[in-house]
């Protein structure tokens, strides 16, 4: 039996590895192709990396989601970090405020099917992405 929701606390670089491993495992259990599981694991790695780089700690929640006629995986990255002052700028390719670490959000958006972001300066950031099984 596969778990329908998995939460991974992100506090260190080691947690980035375990978050993406759990994501790949869930994607595989949900019947995603190995190629799509790689895209999902890579997106999780980048989202977890953003948490470690910008907010120090946060959480990744992996969930199975049901659409009208399809199944998918939802990945939600939340933190109580400094937030993103200019989301439009952060979604532009090549933008990164912590040196060259992470091309970040535009890449994650390309890896997944759906992408939502909410952020408040001083309050934190929530990035929610989904990928549907083909």
């Amino acid at each position, binding site marked *: 039996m596969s778990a329908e929701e998995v939460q991974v606390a992100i506090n260190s670089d080691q947690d980035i*590895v375990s978050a993406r491993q759990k994501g790949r495992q869930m994607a595989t259990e949900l019947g995603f192709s190995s190629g799509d599981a790689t895209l999902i*694991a*890579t997106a999780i790695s980048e989202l977890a*990396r953003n948490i470690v780089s910008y907010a120090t700690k946060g959480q990744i929640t992996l969930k199975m989601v049901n659409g009208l006629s399809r199944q998918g995986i939802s990945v939600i990255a939340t933190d109580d970090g400094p937030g993103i002052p200019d989301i439009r700028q952060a979604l532009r*390719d090549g933008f990164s405020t912590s040196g060259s670490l992470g*091309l970040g959000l*535009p*890449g994650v958006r390309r890896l997944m099917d759906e992408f939502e972001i909410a952020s408040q300066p001083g309050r934190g950031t929530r990035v929610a992405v989904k990928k549907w099984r083909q």
Partner: protein
Amino acid sequence: MEVPILKQGAFLIATFQAALSDADLNLLRMGLVQQVVRFRSSAVIVDVTAMDVMDSFASRTLREIAHMIRLRGAETVIVGIQPEVAFAMVQLGLTLEGVATALDLEEGLAYLNEKFKSTN
């Protein structure tokens, strides 16, 4: 996590595992450069066949390894990037510009043997 570094004549071969953390990658970068100095190696092959995710940090580290080794006057070849990993890297916008790549360990060795044969 220990990354095995094998000495093969004038070349070093480092085999990366799947679950390398950032700290592991940083250690590896230092270790490889030190070994190149110690053995006066002319080239390093980094075998990433087992890596199932290549995110921005991993690919930046590989680029840095190649550049540091070039500053030592040696060459780096990255071998074994899996097709799915290559696809994800392109989607993410990651490149390994200026770094030699080859299909697998065998091709990497053939490339280096050819290269060092013609210059010796």
